[in-house]
């Protein structure tokens, strides 16, 4: 009763917003978790200890990944292989990502693009949820192993980015920012990424390391969810749900012009390599 009153008050204060819904669900989940621990007379410390090391490792690892993005862009021209990837797309698939995305923008309503953006950024929740599930169901070691696999994906991708730097279809798209029909956060991030990449490549002074992700090939935005599927493979329903989400994720990645078509098989390939590396023990 108290909880219902609390949730109602929270919704009235914050208004009906997606984050209010998230906060209410989270509050319910945390209270239920604490209540069950209390009923079983178990301490909360072991549960915290099964998740916190992996979470800290993930944050530290991603800081490294973003920093190395900046380092690579400072020494290698970020768009050196973009034209080649765009031409490869045209040759293999008979079309380019930019052509498809701008055609979709003409045909589809703004809400579809907004949903695509929510799906695109929602990928990070898959990683966070998998850390929680692995930690609570199998212990800290497995959660750390999952984060390790994600970081291996990133390190392989950064190595390929160093060898064949490519930025994304929005770089090769002629007049990309003038042709946009909708205002989306993705486009702000793309504009910022291009701006920072240019500044870093020209060695202009910067005061803060930007948290930008410059690489297109291979698509880590797909490789990471594939690692998630591998680690959750015992949870059949979760895998089915995430697999369906990932199909929409690929479509979102493409219509928002984050990656080339060929980045997708590239992402699948590095996920396969990482699964081969950690597979037997994961």
């Amino acid at each position, binding site marked *: 009763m108290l909880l219902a009153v609390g949730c109602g008050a929270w919704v009235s204060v914050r208004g009906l917003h997606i*984050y209010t819904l*998230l*906060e209410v*669900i*989270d509050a*319910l*989940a*945390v209270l*239920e978790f604490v*209540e069950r621990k209390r009923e079983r007379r178990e301490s909360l410390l072991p549960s915290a200890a099964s998740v916190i090391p992996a979470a800290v*490792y993930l*944050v*530290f*690892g991603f*800081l*490294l990944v973003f*920093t*190395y993005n*900046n*380092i690579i862009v*400072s*020494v290698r021209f970020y768009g050196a292989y973009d034209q080649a990837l765009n031409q490869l797309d045209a040759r293999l698939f008979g079309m380019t990502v930019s052509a498809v995305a701008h055609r979709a923008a003409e045909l589809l309503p703004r809400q579809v693009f907004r949903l695509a953006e929510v799906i695109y950024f*929602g990928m*990070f*929740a*898959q*990683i*966070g*949820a998998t*850390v*929680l*599930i692995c930690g609570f169901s199998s212990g800290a070691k497995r959660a750390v*192993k999952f*984060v*390790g*696999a994600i*970081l*291996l994906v990133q*390190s392989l991708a950064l190595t390929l980015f160093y060898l064949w730097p490519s930025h994304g279809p929005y770089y090769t798209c002629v007049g990309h920012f003038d042709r946009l029909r909708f205002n989306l956060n993705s486009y702000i991030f793309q504009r910022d990424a291009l701006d920072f990449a240019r500044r870093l490549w020209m*060695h202009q*002074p*910067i*005061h*803060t*390391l*930007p*948290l930008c992700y410059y690489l297109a090939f291979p698509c880590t935005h797909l490789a990471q969810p594939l690692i998630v599927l591998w680690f959750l493979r015992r*949870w*059949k*329903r*979760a895998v089915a*749900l995430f697999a369906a989400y990932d199909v929409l994720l690929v479509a979102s990645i493409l219509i928002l012009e984050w990656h080339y078509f060929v980045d997708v098989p590239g992402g699948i390939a590095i996920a396969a390599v990482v699964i081969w*590396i*950690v597979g*037997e*023990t*994961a």
Partner: protein
Amino acid sequence: MGLYTAATPTHSPLQRVAVLPALRSNLHFVVVGVATVALFPALVRLHLPLVWPWEFIWGFIRSVVLQSVCVASVLYVITHPTELSVIAAR
């Protein structure tokens, strides 16, 4: 007999085979370790500051944590539907 025992290898082939999976499963520690050690010289050489935008990072972490707890809870209920009646009854 004593001479034959002394010539026998101290580690069996089985032990040697087990080293490879252990190396593979801990490879990420090696990669992250090497990347961490190499980070500072690289930043100094390129005149890049070791200053991260912490305000943005905390905001991002908060948002991802909120979403992750929500997704994990929903997944738990989907994979254990009988738990929903227990939660509802409470």
